[in-house]
């Protein structure tokens, strides 16, 4: 039902998430923001079990901030991703597992942009592009066909739009809008919401 996508370029990562918060067959909210700002240059996109998503994401968010306060500098995206993975894995083997699927996108001073895919079994993979949800089945192939590591920001945006258009065409559920954000050396930038229009 929910959809997340991330595309890494040469010096940026662009991410998008749908804005629907649903309860069975009803859209409870159409402007839900599923991205959590972990630090100035790291975003966590989180979907899954209602309640688990916000609970887990905010817990990770506050712990990343605590690290910043204790040590005077922010965790790198790699460290943050591994920290998140460890937490998710520990909870998985407890009586209270979190059922969430995540994308972690960030920019590191030395390593550059990074996109990390994490699923509810706490598998972590660094990937040039990734997606979560039923929509992933429809869009991963488009990313396979058109992705290049040296995409410019506009090209990556076009690729993202291609994926959203495909969802609009082939996905049974109507996802009316998507939040889009871009992370580069200057931090996190909000881009215009993507609103797919009409039937093809």
């Amino acid at each position: 039902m929910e959809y997340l996508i991330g595309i890494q370029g040469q010096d940026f990562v662009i991410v998008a998430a749908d804005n629907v918060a649903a309860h069975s067959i009803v859209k409870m909210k159409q402007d839900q923001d599923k991205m959590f700002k972990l630090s100035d240059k790291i975003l966590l996109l989180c979907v899954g079990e209602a309640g688990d998503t916000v609970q887990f994401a905010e817990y990770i968010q506050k712990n990343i901030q605590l690290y910043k306060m204790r040590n005077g500098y922010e965790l790198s995206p790699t460290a943050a991703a591994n920290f998140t993975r460890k937490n998710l894995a520990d909870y998985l083997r407890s009586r209270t597992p979190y059922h969430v699927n995540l994308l972690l996108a960030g920019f590191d001073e030395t390593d550059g942009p990074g996109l990390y895919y994490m699923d509810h079994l706490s598998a972590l993979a660094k990937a040039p592009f990734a997606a979560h949800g039923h929509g992933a089945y429809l869009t991963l192939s488009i990313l396979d066909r058109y992705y290049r590591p040296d995409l410019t920001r506009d090209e990556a945006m076009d690729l993202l739009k291609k994926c959203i258009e495909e969802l609009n065409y082939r996905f049974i559920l109507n996802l009316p809008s998507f939040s889009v954000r871009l992370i580069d050396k200057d931090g996190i930038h909000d881009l215009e919401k993507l609103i797919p229009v009409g039937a093809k």
Partner: protein
Amino acid sequence: MSYDRAITVFSPDGHLFQVEYAQEAVKKGSTAVGVRGKNVVVLGVEKKTVAKLQDDRTVRKICALDDNVFMAFAGLTADARIVVNRARVECQSHRLTVEDPVTVEYITRFISSIKQRYTQSNGRRPFGISSLIVGFDFDGTPHLYQTDPSGTYHAWKANAIGRSAKTVREFLEKNYKEEHMESDTDVIKLAVRALLEVVQSGGKNIELAIMKRDESMKILVQEEIEEYVTAIEKEKEDAEKQKKKT
């Protein structure tokens, strides 16, 4: 198994000697001064001269607790580390449960209640630190609070703790002017002048941190401190010349 004996107990004439001894430990610590301006809050500490082979960057006596609050302390540095860590965790915990940053009063109350608990616990001694906690609430009001080993806290416009605190406080009482608190430079200068009263060798033994409304804490580099010191010395000279003329 927990301890069964209290260490902090009343004396026949109503004193808690352990707490008073802790306050003595505070008086031996290096001086810290805090000034609350209208748009900026300032904390300054006396930097003890380090040994030749020691890296002086590792002695940090001003600690950020969150993006809107920071503190300095006087007394046992190791005790302060514990308190600062607990406060930092509480700041994030508050944000997690209430979705709002702490107010300066809240975190001061939290720190004070920890300190008080240790004056009434089996097997524990009080924390040997007094702290100056400054920051801005989310409605923009600046605050300066002082806590001490007994667990009491009070709000201040300007205060000092540690060695020679009395001298510095008297200086502040004489020289604090409400009108000057509008100007950020005047607030910072007051803190620097107060510290210069008791610090031996001038600018290079001072560590200064400021926070302007809606900005995070900024620790001033040595050059910036020197600028203030030179400006202050020039003002002193001019004042002397004026006096000589009249």
